């Protein structure tokens, strides 16, 4: 666990940069994390996925898997990969300030 500064505020993140306390997150932090992951600007479509991810996590305690995301976020898997190249579930979780989703055992 380390502390980094995002959008001017110190926050706790894990080794891979996932926020450990979702309540510390702000949209500005999301934008900053997106930029460092190579996404210049978060569009409305990006936010639809990020907000959905975050809401599911806060409601249920678990981030949705990519398959669940494709079925329920209103954005199909193909587009998810266009929006968040290299692993939409992980990247959207990171930008949305929730812990890294774990595959089911």
């Amino acid at each position, binding site marked *: *666990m380390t502390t980094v500064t995002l959008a001017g505020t110190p926050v706790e993140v894990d080794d891979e940069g996932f926020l450990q306390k979702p309540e510390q997150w702000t949209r500005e932090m999301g934008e900053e994390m997106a930029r460092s992951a190579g996404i210049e600007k978060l569009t409305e479509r990006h936010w639809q996925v990020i907000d959905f991810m975050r809401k599911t996590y806060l409601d249920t*305690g*678990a*981030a*949705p*898997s*990519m*398959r*669940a995301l494709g*079925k*329920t976020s209103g954005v199909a*898997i*193909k587009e*998810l*990969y266009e929006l968040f*190249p*290299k*692993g939409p579930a992980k990247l959207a979780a990171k930008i949305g300030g929730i*812990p*890294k*989703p*774990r*595959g*089911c*055992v």
Partner: protein
Amino acid sequence: MRRRYGAETEITVVDRDNRHVYQPDLLFVPFGLVAPDSICRPRSKQLRRGVEFRLGKVERVETEKNTVHLVGGETLPYDVLIVASGAELLPEETEGLTGPGWGATAFTYYSVEGAASLSKAMEGFEGGRLVVNIVDVPIKCPIAPLEFCFLSDWWLQKRGLRKKTEIVLATPLDGAFTKPVAARMLGELLEKKKILVEAEFATGRVDGEARKLHSWDEREIDYDLLVSIPLHGGSPFVESSNGLGDELGFIVVDPNTLQAKAAPNVFAIGDATNVPTSKAGAVAHFQAETLGENIQHFLAGEELEKSFDGHANCFIETGFSKALLLDFNYDVEPLPGKFPLPGIGPMSLLKESRLDHLGKLAFRKLYWHLLLPGRRIPLISAQLKMAGKDTSLLSSTKEGVTG
């Protein structure tokens, strides 16, 4: 239940077919080690007297009216419902998987018919690229694909084909397993056996004509023989039953009491649930204890016990008459050690041994003669025991909840 309540309870088991399959043996069918017929028995014969068996397909459950609707219009009212409808294979949900080449160069051994036809294809296999692909999780027995790789390595060596064959495991996970200590140890074993791992491979489509797997992030894997573990979902009736399941059709239950969120008199067990532990027969066995007690508590109007801890216990067949054993739960990842008796075993945890292999084979008999008739296995408790486990390999940060 009948032991507890005698003839005052009526128990009805509904299933759409009368063929009970010992699924762990599906692993051995492709290698000609067991015959497909030998792993199936009539369900009706496994049930004790006093338990009615009804052949019928469930269309939906109406929890507000305590009623199960069967296809054809028949209805079954209930006081308590236990959903144990397992997981379905959904190969058609992956673009191209069941198209050209399905049953010729692409197979699954997760069904009896699939395992039998793969067995024929293996018989005629002359070497090349053998790709084992987990399309996405959750799947039944998440370590079974690793076992398939290990057994393939052994089988190909025996036939003198190993030098002519590349074995590739294409998995959506970032390693061999979801938990760090086991992932590292199993990863080393795969490496030792020269099985290539293509990690974080999220399968998007299969091109059966060109014999290629494509991932969503545009990677490609060529194959000569594809062994696919297709997508899994809950039984189709779940989607038609208001509020019962999650988006994949698994029953939403309290992970510790197994009571359904949809209604207090509905419980679920086994692969049908959404609990974040392995979909394995051993898990269903441990859950049965919690379930039995909680149904009694429910009927007596008492508070339910939060006693199910996610306990899973799986043998991993590693080839050359060896196997290793994993024992874990929601909070404790698989660790090395001895099982079930601390220091003595006789089984070893997370370490290959001949005895673990014999254990896996002996389990077949235990299954039909002890487990199905509802007897207990001596020495093995429903909850995970820490005694006998080596905790020195745990990193200090606690694992997050899986899901």
